C-alpha cells in the first residue's frame, strides 16, 4: 500500500467556497483518496493504480460557470515521510526489563534490548498499544511456543517473542514497507526463528500456533478473528490490541462467538490490550 506512487493534483478554486467543498466531494467519488485544503483550493491525492487519463472527465464542477478552477499535477514517489521524527526519537523502556531503541541510542542495561529502525512502520514502543503488548509478552511464557504476529509493523513484538524463547514465529504484514522493515529488524536483532511474510489473513490456511499476537484495529480484528482462531492450537492464547475501551464489547462478543474466553485486560489512555484463551 504505502509503497504505491501517488499522483497529486493541485487545484486553484475561485470562489474558494463552496467550490472546494464540491470539488472534494466529487473527487472522493471518483477515487481520490485524501485531500489537503490550501489557501487557494485543494491538493488531492490518488493512488497511481486507481488513476487513468480520463479521471477528471466526469468531475462536473470543472465545467460549471460558477467556479473558475485550474490545476497542475505531479507524480509523487513514496519516501520515508517519517524520517524527521525517526532521526531523534527517545528510547522506550517497558517495566525496567525491555528496551526498544534505535541503533544510535546507547545500549541500556535491560534483559531484552530490541533495536528498531522503524522506516515508516508502526511499532517503536511509543504507542500505548505496543507498550501494553510488550507487557503482555513479558508476563507470559513463550518458551518453545509457536507464535503468529499479525500486522507485525517493525516486527518488534515478534522479536521480543523470540528473545523470550518462542519458535517458530511467523510475522505477517500487508504493507510492503512494513514487510521489508520487519525483515531488516529481524536481522538487526540476530533473530533466527522468525519468518516474515507479506500479505493478510488469507495467508493463513492450515498453520497452527500456540500464541497469536495482533495489534491492528477493531474492524480488521472483527473481520479476521475467525481465521485466527482456526489457527490456534489447544491451550492457546491470543493477545489483541489496537482499539479503545469502548470497542471491547464488540471484540469480546466476537471472541466468545469463536469459543475464546477473556482472561486479562491492560489499559492505558483509553487504549486496551486483551488476553484471551481457547
Amino acid at each position, binding site marked *: 500500500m*504505502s509503497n504505491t506512487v501517488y499522483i497529486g493534483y493541485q487545484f486553484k478554486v475561485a470562489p474558494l467556497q463552496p467550490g472546494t*467543498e464540491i470539488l472534494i466531494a466529487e473527487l472522493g467519488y471518483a477515487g481520490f483518496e485524501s485531500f489537503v485544503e490550501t489557501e487557494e483550493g485543494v491538493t488531492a491525492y490518488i493512488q497511481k493504480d486507481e488513476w487513468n487519463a480520463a479521471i477528471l472527465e466526469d468531475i462536473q464542477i470543472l465545467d460549471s460557470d460558477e467556479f473558475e478552477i485550474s490545476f497542475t499535477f505531479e507524480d509523487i514517489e513514496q519516501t520515508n515521510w517519517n524520517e524527521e521524527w525517526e532521526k531523534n526519537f527517545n528510547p522506550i523502556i517497558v517495566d525496567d526489563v525491555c528496551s526498544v531503541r534505535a541503533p544510535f541510542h546507547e545500549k541500556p542495561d535491560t534483559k531484552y534490548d530490541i533495536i528498531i529502525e522503524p522506516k515508516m512502520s508502526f511499532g517503536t514502543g*511509543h504507542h500505548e498499544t505496543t507498550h501494553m503488548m510488550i507487557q503482555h509478552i513479558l508476563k507470559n511464557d513463550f518458551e518453545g511456543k509457536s507464535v503468529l504476529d499479525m500486522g507485525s509493523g517493525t516486527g518488534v513484538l515478534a522479536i521480543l517473542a523470540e528473545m523470550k524463547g518462542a519458535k517458530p514465529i511467523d510475522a505477517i504484514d500487508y504493507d510492503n514497507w512494513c514487510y521489508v522493515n520487519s525483515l531488516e529488524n529481524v536481522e538487526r536483532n540476530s533473530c533466527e526463528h522468525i519468518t516474515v511474510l507479506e500479505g493478510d489473513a488469507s495467508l493463513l490456511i492450515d498453520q497452527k500456533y500456540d500464541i497469536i499476537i495482533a495489534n491492528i484495529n477493531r474492524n480488521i480484528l472483527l473481520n479476521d478473528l475467525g481465521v485466527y482462531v482456526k489457527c490456534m492450537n489447544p491451550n492457546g492464547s491470543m493477545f489483541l490490541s489496537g482499539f479503545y475501551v469502548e470497542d471491547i464489547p464488540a471484540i469480546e462478543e466476537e471472541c466468545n462467538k469463536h469459543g475464546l474466553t477473556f482472561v486479562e485486560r491492560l489499559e492505558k489512555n483509553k487504549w486496551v490490550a486483551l488476553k484471551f484463551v481457547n
Partner: protein
Amino acid sequence: MESYATKILKMAKELSKVVKLQVRGGAANPSPPVGPALGAAGVNIMEFCKQFNARTQDKPGKVLPVVISVFKDKSFDFVIKTPPAAVQLLEAAKVKKGSGEPNRKKVAKVTWDQIKAIAEDKMQDLNAFTSEKAMDMVAGTARSMGISVTGKKPN
C-alpha cells in the same frame, strides 16, 4: 516572573502549524498527504495514523475532514469533523456527482428537511450563527451542484 516549569509548559503547547486534511475513515496511512504534511513538522506520523484510524472505525471509507494542531514540541492534537455538506448532499440525493450546468441542468433533488438535517450537523463548522443561516448556506451549496431543493423551508 513565570517559573521555568511554566515556561516549558507554555512552550510545549505553542502552536507550530495547523493542517487541514480530508482522509477516509479508518484508512489513514503514512502516504501523501498525511506523510508530507505531518512528517516535515517532526510529528510521528505512525502515531497519528493509529489514532485517527481507531477513532474512525465507525465510518470506514468515508471522507472525513480532520484539523490537526501541531505544537512546537512535535506533539499534536486533532479534531475529526462530520463529512462536508457537499458530500452529505450527494449522499442525500443518491448521486455521485453534481451538474456541470447547475442553473440549467438539475441532476437530483433533496428536500428542505434533508437540508435542515445537514445544516444542523454542520452548524459548528459553517460559522453560522442561526440554523436558518446554516440552512441557506447548505441550500446554496446544493444549488451550485445542480441539486434542487423541494418542499417547504422549515422554521
